[in-house]
């Protein structure tokens, strides 16, 4: 026992002596001919695994197409599973940045994960690409410097869609039904703001818990005198909603419109005729008829044997963005300030979704497509029926005035004109 005590005392002294000197010590950087390390974090298991895998697939497809090489350096991807739990995401990000010493991070799916990672990313000064996380405030009221969003904000396509619904679809009165969390509020809020500003009216807002299994109690609440129902659902809830909307006899009577993810290609192949005619808006559609998108869809189909969802496109674009920035700095990603600058000033025109550049707040300015579900050659697709070019997250509003407004919430009421 005394021996153990002596060893222990010695260790304590040694560790105490070293404590002061170690606090500020940083590990040496690898030389520049090392591979560029990309840390990927996303849900690869659990309820959101499919979305996470789509994101990862899109990234790997692009890196494969360029042979995992950019500006003469190899690209190495280290992927970690965060189970869509914010605290796990943080732990995995720490592992990637502190242990694996990645040069750049990418990934994340949910808004909660996005908010959890943001302060850590800012503090560790490693750039991170958010291909999907659409929480408005990440590039608005709570924006940082090191996060580069190549995706969208939840309200962005819906601003355009509100105007389209009023002027082109000639809708006057709309009920909304959506998942009850920030993504739902921001999508519905964006739609409500422009739709009501043009003269329309949102007569009802119905919120369903994220764990909703049966839509009967919610569908029964929908007033029959509305011109259309606006819906936002994802994954299993989207499938279930579409089926029940038809079973309730609503499909025959009331037009169904919604946010893009409701009919996104991650659920569309599993839907049937109940989805036909649904009109939604998003910054991407797999049916977009451009050379860049046709090539992407063909390559994705060949590799993964399915149609790409917007999640898959998101990180295909994200990877391309990353490589464009790596090439702009000649592969010297170790100069993080220059690399960050390059990431923020990339402009790409040949993306599957069309041209994209970032605004001063770090959010993409990109096309918004209004899509209608149609059956073509036996398969459902989101046929593009209208395009709003170069839509910003602030729509047509002045950014400064926009940011003085509160974030879209569950109780959002549009400002008086």
């Amino acid at each position: 026992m005394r021996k153990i005590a002596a060893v222990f005392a010695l260790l304590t002294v040694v560790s105490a002596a070293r404590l002061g000197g170690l606090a500020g010590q940083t590990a040496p950087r690898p030389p520049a001919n090392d591979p560029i390390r990309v840390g990927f974090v996303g849900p690869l298991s659990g309820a959101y695994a499919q979305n996470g895998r789509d994101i990862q697939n899109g990234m790997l497809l692009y890196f494969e197409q360029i042979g995992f090489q950019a500006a003469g350096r190899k690209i190495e991807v280290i992927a970690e599973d965060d189970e869509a739990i914010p605290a796990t995401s943080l732990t995995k990000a720490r592992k990637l940045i502190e242990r694996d010493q990645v040069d750049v991070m990418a990934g994340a799916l949910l808004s909660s994960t996005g908010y959890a990672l943001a302060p850590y990313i800012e503090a560790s000064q490693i750039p991170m690409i958010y291909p999907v996380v659409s929480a408005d405030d990440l590039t608005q009221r709570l924006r940082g410097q090191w996060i580069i969003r190549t995706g969208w904000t939840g309200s962005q396509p819906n601003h355009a869609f509100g105007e389209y619904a009023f002027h082109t679809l000639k809708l006057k009165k709309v009920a909304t039904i959506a998942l009850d969390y920030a993504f739902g509020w921001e999508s519905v809020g964006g739609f409500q703001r422009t739709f009501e500003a043009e003269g329309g009216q949102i007569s009802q807002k119905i919120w369903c818990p994220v764990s909703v299994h049966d839509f009967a109690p919610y569908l029964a609440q929908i007033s029959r005198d509305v011109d259309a129902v606006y819906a936002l659902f994802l994954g299993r809830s989207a499938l279930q909603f579409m089926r029940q909307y038809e079973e309730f006899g609503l499909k025959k009577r009331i037009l169904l419109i919604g946010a893009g993810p409701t009919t996104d290609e991650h659920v569309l192949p599993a839907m049937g005729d109940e989805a036909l005619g649904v009109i939604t808006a998003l910054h991407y559609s797999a049916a977009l008829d451009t050379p860049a998108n046709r090539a992407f869809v063909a390559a994705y189909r060949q590799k993964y044997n399915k149609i790409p969802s917007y999640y898959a496109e998101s990180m295909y674009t994200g990877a391309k963005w990353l490589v464009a920035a790596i090439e702009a700095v000649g592969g010297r990603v170790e100069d993080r300030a220059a690399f960050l600058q390059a990431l923020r000033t990339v402009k790409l025109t040949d993306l599957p979704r069309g041209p994209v550049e970032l605004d001063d707040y770090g959010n993409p300015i990109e096309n918004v497509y209004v899509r209608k579900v149609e059956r073509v050659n036996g398969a459902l697709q989101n046929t593009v029926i209208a395009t709003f070019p170069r839509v910003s997250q602030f729509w047509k509003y002045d950014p400064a005035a926009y940011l003085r407004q509160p974030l879209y919430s569950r109780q959002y009421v549009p400002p008086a004109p």
Partner: protein
Amino acid sequence: MEETSSTLSRRKLAILIVAFAGLVAAPPFFNLALPGLASYSVGLLTEMLIFGLLAMSLDILLGYTGMPSFGHAGFFGVAAYAVAVLSTRHHAGFWLTVAMGLAVGTLLSAAFGLLVSHVRDVYFLMITLALGMVLWGVSYRWIPMTGGDNGISGLPRLESHLGIPWSGPLPFYYLTLIVFLACCALLALLVNSPFGLTLKGIRESESRMKSLGVNTWLHRYLSYVISGAFASIAGILWAYYNRYVSPTYLDLTASSELFLMVTLGGPGTLVGPAIGAGAIVLLKNVISAYTERWLLILGAVYILTILWAPQGLWNLGGRHRSKS
């Protein structure tokens, strides 16, 4: 029969001392041996300590008093939320924030204790489960206060909030270690005190303890509150560690994982749950770096433990088979 720490075998005492020395000396060792990995490894150790403390707090209930709580992550989460709300929105000072975190968690357990202390076994499990779900629901839906699903981010660093001149993973680790060891000492004192022995008596036979004139309700109530208080301490550390809080801290998954930590390590031993927590944190993070099928391995570990170490890892190869 579990051993109390006063009758710990020499072997186990030696293990404990080595573990203690290891915890103190590990970070500098990491720095010497694996310079690139140091800060990440220290972070993992910090996580292990925080969850170790949380698992030990549940052990008071589950292992010593025999009350299987399925909503224990609730107190952990509520304390974390108190820290987050006070430090970000109200810019409260460090000591006020910590005191309020502890007070909110403890008062809540004192209130919930009134509702649950009169029931046992599966009824206790179900009520605590329901209360845990209520807390989760509040964190998810009371958006002006909690930020809902998005959580609250941007908490200050513990080091700067406390006003110490060092910052980084190492000072945080040693602060956590000090809190952890202090809590260990308090919990060890508690379970070996007459009060702690009465808790064990209640676990073994409540009717006998009643006939001895013990107010068993009060003892169960107090053990619930004490356990909630220690869980709050872990919650405060976790909030500062992540500088972020979200409803996932107190959801059912968190509570059940905590339950697994205690069961894996060996309930009613204090040391066991801490080991269980450490093992799970380590497995989750180390295995997942090597394989995508890490959940499979974690599941296998649980099954193997149930088959070959039903009393938990800490009781592995112990002397209590003779009980049969």
